[in-house]
């Protein structure tokens, strides 16, 4: 079971890295590097080799490379996300048309986040497995418990994905209507107020649980 968690965790982290790298490939920064080196294979190999080398060094020194992989994925994917910022577009002037569409970039970024979260969850399940086995709990029972926990986590993932798809449909398609400047400002302000209220509401709810 521990080996299974380890394999799944590695696969999830590696998949997150691949997604992050795909996102990076369609960024102005990558094209800039391509212009400097002159070879796409060379650039890809150099980036991946550097990432692999750094991961190996971090693993050798801390015996846990996952936090570094997480940072690396975020670093690689951020240029792709930032490219779609209207503010930066106005200042620097990216040629967004030649890159991935905003919908695909957004979905890939979401997938990467979920993969990283899953890898983190698998790590915590692996630790839990070790703790429970150390406490002399029956192995079959531990398997059953962790399977149930994993199922519950998958339910959370699927719920979040559905929620994300609904939100992206709402955000990218429904709101892509032509409207006056005033209506856009009002909708944006309402959105900000609604979202911040949501965060404050849930935060307050948590704060009221003083006995935890």
């Amino acid at each position, binding site marked *: 079971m521990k080996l299974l968690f380890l394999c799944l965790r590695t696969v999830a982290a590696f998949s997150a890295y691949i997604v992050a790298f795909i996102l990076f490939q369609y960024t102005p920064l990558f094209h800039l590097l391509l212009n400097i080196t002159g070879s796409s294979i060379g650039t890809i190999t150099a980036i991946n080799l550097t990432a692999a080398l750094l991961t190996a060094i971090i693993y050798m020194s801390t015996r846990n490379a996952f936090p570094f992989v997480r940072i690396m994925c975020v670093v690689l994917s951020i240029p792709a996300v930032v490219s779609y910022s209207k503010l930066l577009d106005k200042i620097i002037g990216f040629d967004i048309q030649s890159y991935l569409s905003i919908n695909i970039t*957004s979905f890939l970024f*979401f997938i990467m986040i979920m993969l990283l979260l899953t890898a983190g969850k698998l790590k915590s399940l692996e630790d839990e497995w070790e703790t429970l086995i150390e*406490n002399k709990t029956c192995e079959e029972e531990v398997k059953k418990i962790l399977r149930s926990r994993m199922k519950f986590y998958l339910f959370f993932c699927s719920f*979040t994905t559905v929620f994300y798809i609904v939100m992206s449909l709402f955000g990218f398609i429904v709101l892509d209507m032509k409207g006056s400047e005033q209506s856009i400002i009002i909708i944006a302000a309402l959105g900000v107020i609604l979202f911040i209220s949501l*965060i404050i509401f849930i935060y307050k*709810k*948590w704060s009221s649980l003083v006995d935890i």
Partner: protein
Amino acid sequence: MPGFVLRTSTISLTMLLAGFLFANNILILTSFVPLCYLAFGYFIKVPGNIEVKKSISRNRIIGGELLEVKLKASVEAGFGILEICDVVPPHFELVEGSNYKVIWKGMERGEIYLRYTIKCTTSGTYPMNATKWKARHSICSFSEYGQCENDISVEVSPRLLELRKVRGMSAANKIPMPQGALSSMGMNTNEFKELRLYSPGDSFKSINWKVTSRSLLRGNVWPVVNEFEREGKKSVWIFLDTSRTMNFGSNVRNVKEYSIEAVNSLSDYYLKHNCSVAFLTYGHSTIAINGGSGRNQYYRILKELIKIKDKKSEPYNIKANFLTLYDAVNSYRQHFLGMRPLFVIITRFCTNNYDEVKKGIERMSRYTIRKGALPSVMVVNIDGYGLMAENQAEKLASNLLDSMNRIISKEVRKNCIWIDWDPARESLTEAIIKQVVS
């Protein structure tokens, strides 16, 4: 509030504000992911409403006996992993089963059954009232802790060592007996001893009619009589050392526990031989039970012996003046006059208490008579070094220290009946017979 709530809220808010600042739709959209995580964490509760029903096979056991514990816990609300652990006092040893269980609490009502057997070798009153639980959240990485309490406790009496198994008269006669009794069947005194069932030959005057009528209601037709102390009983005074030198050994096997068992066995032995037994402690705690006989006196001593273990946990006050053996003998000297009792001292002899034991024996020898060359003072010295020895080298070292103690105690040994008892090697009976006979 768990730290992850603050972290997740901050991430979500930062992403949202960055999204609005840079006019980035992707950042605004993905800021919903941590918010979902937070919402799941709040709206899906950890397992709660836990009720525990616990029972033990007996409330009173003798040291070394097994105790069966049954526990049923029910979980009404929440989702997630629930770990439950029934707290076992530190002096207990788990023999069978487990006092820990973990379950997954899903939609249905969760039930946990625990059944285990424990053994305790040290006397005392132990509370078994706590059952701890830890509930982990099904999605988020935080746990809630709690404790269910009840009023269950168990009283562990010290073991009765094998003194009563001495059958042969030659051996039994060698166990020191007090010399001071004028007659073993004396006149009745006014001191109430106990209630017992009527036996042929008892005076009708001695029947306790109130108790008899009460027992009649319970279906017992046999009359109950009052028994009074008789004059001329042989008197034994047991002195137990409760000083810091006795706290030697592990939690399960220690000198203090063996000393308590020795007092228990000796008092049982002498009371069964129709002696009046008094019990005193010196060193740390002061317990004094004046002379008496019969089973009531045995239970009185046993009750105090159980308390000694509990007093062990009290911190030692260096500045406090504790009663020495000499002081204890001196303060009760009025009770010894004319009685010529047998004094029994139970201690762990070492260089620290050399003077104390010597002075105490000298003082005792004033109030007792000599049996041959020795006064009626018996010292049971518990050799504790053997209890801590685990390997050959440690055993060798413990033997060396025991030998050194024998050399140091050479002077003191001349003035009393000295019994060296190593609980790791022999029983108390063997130690007494071996050394008294020799």
